[in-house]
């Protein structure tokens, strides 16, 4: 079996006096979409931020394609091929859409074929190419946030709740774009509260509770088992 793209082994993260992650074990297989699921406040966002180096792991080990990145600074992790999409539409509002994208292409000028591919996934970005990113709508900002990660081929994408608070039409656009990213062979660790989207996109799933991964397996298995969903995440039929 090949080395997973990302592996977390017994990762602990403290924020101030709070112990948020209490020994997270997690794997993201190469070229797969791994869903990170769980109730609010169980440590999903902290897990992503620990991988990218925003929060420093106080214990355990994180490896990217076999390389230990536990103590690496955030920019080095990013340049090692990790694209991060934060949950709060992490764009630079004062810059134009074009400037946001140029900034994200850290290894050189934007590849035009790649840009066309991004435009095909998110057409509004082409329309508002020269506009200030701060003037975009919420959905367009989220598109820009994901497009920025997509503009260069990364080894791993960490995406935090890309459909949160978006209109159904925009959610569909997001899901389509993520499917394209998946088809491109990307390894993705995706935090998603929308279970329908998670079921549609995920290959594998890890469910967190109280700072630990309490269940890991195939997304299809979790999607089929209503009792398991209820037990792990408290999902009711309505939520599904």
């Amino acid at each position, binding site marked *: 079996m090949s080395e997973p793209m990302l592996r977390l082994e017994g990762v602990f993260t403290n924020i101030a006096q709070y112990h948020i992650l209490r020994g997270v074990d997690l794997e993201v297989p190469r070229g797969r979409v791994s869903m990170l699921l769980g109730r609010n406040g169980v440590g999903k966002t902290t897990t992503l931020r620990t991988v990218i180096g925003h929060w420093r792991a106080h214990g355990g080990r994180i490896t990217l394609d076999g390389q230990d990145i536990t103590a690496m*600074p955030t920019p080095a992790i*990013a340049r090692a091929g990790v694209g991060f999409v934060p949950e709060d539409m*992490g764009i630079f509002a004062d*810059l134009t859409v074009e400037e946001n994208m140029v*900034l994200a292409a850290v290894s050189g000028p934007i590849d035009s074929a790649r840009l066309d591919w991004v435009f095909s996934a998110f057409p509004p970005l082409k329309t508002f190419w020269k506009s200030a990113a701060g003037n975009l709508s919420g959905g367009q900002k989220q598109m820009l946030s994901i497009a920025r990660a997509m503009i260069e081929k990364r080894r791993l994408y960490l995406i935090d709740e890309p459909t949160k608070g978006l209109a159904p039409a925009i959610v569909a656009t997001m899901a389509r774009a993520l499917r394209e990213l998946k088809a491109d062979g990307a390894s993705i660790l995706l935090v998603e509260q929308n279970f329908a989207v998670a079921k549609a996109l995920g290959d594998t799933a890890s469910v967190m509770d109280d700072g630990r991964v309490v269940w890991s397996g195939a997304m299809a298995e979790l999607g089929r088992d209503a009792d398991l969903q209820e037990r792990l995440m408290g999902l009711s039929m309505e939520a599904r």
Partner: protein
Amino acid sequence: MRAVLSGDMPRSRVLALILAVILVALALAPFLFPGVRTVDTAARICVFVVLVASYDLMLGYGGIVSFAHTMFFGIGAYGIALASTHMGRGFDALIVGAGAGALVAAALALVIGLFSLRVRAIFFAMITLAVASAVAVLVSQLSGLTGGEDGLTFQTPRALSPAFRFGDSLLGVKLNGKLLVYYLVFVGALILFLLLLRVVNSPFGRVLQAIRENDFRAEAIGYRVVYYRVAATCLSASAAALAGSLYAIWLRYVGPDTVLSMEIMIDILLMVVIGGMGTMYGAVIGATLFVLAQNYLQALMGSASGLVEGVPVLPQLLSADRWLLWLGVLFVLSVYFFPTGVVGRLRQGR
């Protein structure tokens, strides 16, 4: 024109017109407004445009608060004074003094930046305040080298002295070394301003803006925030030092009150706020308005006070001695009506 301005157009007709008027007025100041005081005001505007623009590179683009900008300004000015004093009156002394001043300022900014910007930008503000105060005291104490509180008076190359004549007169203005030194200051300031404009509109400038907005997001893309902040600080310090060098060449004198005082630091902050942060054109507008107010508000109020003589209260309110009060009122009003600075307001209202 777009290439000269590095693609950063004024984006407002009124702003473009104001900038053009200021440029023409400064370019032709010795001919349009002949007189020692008016030309001195024009030269001060040129110097302060660069000084404020260099500060805006740090504050407006990098989000870094510094209280040591006058220290860098002073280092450049003292560089010229010390080089001219020890090497004699020659252009080589000016080049060495300006170059050494810019290098020393950059080196000091590098040391302060590496020590403080690694942690949090606010520490940089506190450390710059301490270092600037220490340098000001040091300059006053090392009187053997710096002239202490009296400062240093020095001679510039003969070609830049008022006694040097290179013709009779043009449009009634004497063609002498003072005219040459004005154009040296004007052209030097223009080149430095355009270079700063190029810096903020380069990919480096975009990264700085991204860092100002959210440093973690910039790091998550792959940019080493501390390197960019330190580089911006060094560039800004060098530009401030070169502005100080131009000022010293113009005055042929340096002293702690003239180039190192905290008052200048406050003036710079006011000019940045009035003009508008995060835009180089704000430096032009802020410096011009502020220096003009500093130089002419007192006289204007004296005249106004004379006009309303006999009216109760008004002559006292408009007394020339109260010019600082009115400058304060103008500042409060400008912040109230132009919270994004004059340039921000003009660009919004285009």
